[in-house]
């Protein structure tokens, strides 16, 4: 069990990094990565939402969709759960932890349409739905958490590099998004070095 979790952690964070090898969450990755601070804020918000969404969607799938034979409605069910969850987290934070709300506030609504979150819960469903209910719950939550950690790692590294690239002087047509994409490609190349380390 411990080894399984370690393997899951390493592969979710590094080897199958959400951005660099699965291409999930590229929009916020390119959109809010201009400054390391905002990137970290976005990353924390994603960790928070993705862990809770993995838990909630796992429960919804195992205890609502499967008993009623409604598995084919998973897309609608999951996106609704995520949207409701994000709204709920937003209201809860505003009341209970205003300081955290102020820090994450503007990123939360964006997360509803972050494909990383929906992608994570769908991958969870495909990977772990055959397991016993308790085990599938634990693995889904862990996968959601570590995949989000991987996302945060990627977006923070990228924001750091991008802050330096701002001062460089690329050809005129490469200014802005094109050079950012090439930079992302180079970081992805570094990350693809992990794929040689096959474990599990």
């Amino acid at each position, binding site marked *: 069990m411990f080894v399984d979790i370690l393997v899951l952690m390493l592969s979710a964070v590094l080897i199958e990094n959400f951005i*660099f090898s699965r291409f999930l969450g590229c929009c916020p990755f390119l959109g809010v990565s201009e400054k390391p601070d905002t990137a970290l804020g976005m990353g924390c918000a994603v960790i928070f939402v993705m862990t809770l969404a993995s838990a909630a969607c796992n429960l919804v799938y195992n205890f609502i969709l499967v008993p009623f034979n409604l598995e084919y409605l998973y897309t609608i069910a999951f*996106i609704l759960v995520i949207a409701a969850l994000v709204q709920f987290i937003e209201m809860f934070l505003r009341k209970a932890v205003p300081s955290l709300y102020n820090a994450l506030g503007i990123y939360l609504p964006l997360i509803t349409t972050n494909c990383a979150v929906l992608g994570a819960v769908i991958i969870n469903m495909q990977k772990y739905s055959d397991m016993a209910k308790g085990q599938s719950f634990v693995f889904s939550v862990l996968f959601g958490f570590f995949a989000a950690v991987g996302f945060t790692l990627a977006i923070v590294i990228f924001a750091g590099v991008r802050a330096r690239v701002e001062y460089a002087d690329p050809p005129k047509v490469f200014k802005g998004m094109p050079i950012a994409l090439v930079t992302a490609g180079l970081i992805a190349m570094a990350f693809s070095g992990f794929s040689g380390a096959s474990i599990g």
Partner: protein
Amino acid sequence: MKLDIKQQFLDGILYKNPVFIQLLGLCSMLAITTSVSNAIGMGVAATVVLICSNLLISLLRKFIPKQVRIAAYVVIISAFVTAVELLIKAYLPALDRSLGVFIPLIVVNCMILARAEAFASKNGPVASVIDGVAQGIGYTMALLIISAVREVLGFGTIAGIQLFGESFKPMGIAISPPGGFIILGCLIALVNKLMHTIEDKKNKKGEDK
């Protein structure tokens, strides 16, 4: 309101191309453009969803309250995505396997939500359907261009047909994730260059007059 069909198509395909100019829907695009056949499948699926959702949202635009509009759009879009997904599963199982998780992820493709918010919620059904067709064609064409570059470099084939002789050594990086980012960056730079040239020409014409 007057319809300007030609302008809408020009916008969708060229001046406001969802991928190259607006930079929407990048996630699914980077992931599935490793082969031309995948790109066609994804492009058509997203276009169908876009046209249907644009139509329904523009029909309902007066009834959806402003505060919950995003949630309403997402539900409408995900209904159509589920329909498209079931159709693909039934009739094109091979495509379903190669696109995998990215078919349900059409729901959160920013392009569709952006068109719903920016266009369908403000315009009538006919204009919205035309907008869906134009933007969908622009999206599919962008996917086709990127996937053609990546497939030719990465496999030496186009839509599965061998282009070069035995001695061709495929460039593995083109179909790997890093190559995807780099090739997209270069293509966007190329489009920027093209746009600059067009603008320069326009300016010159203006000066001559």
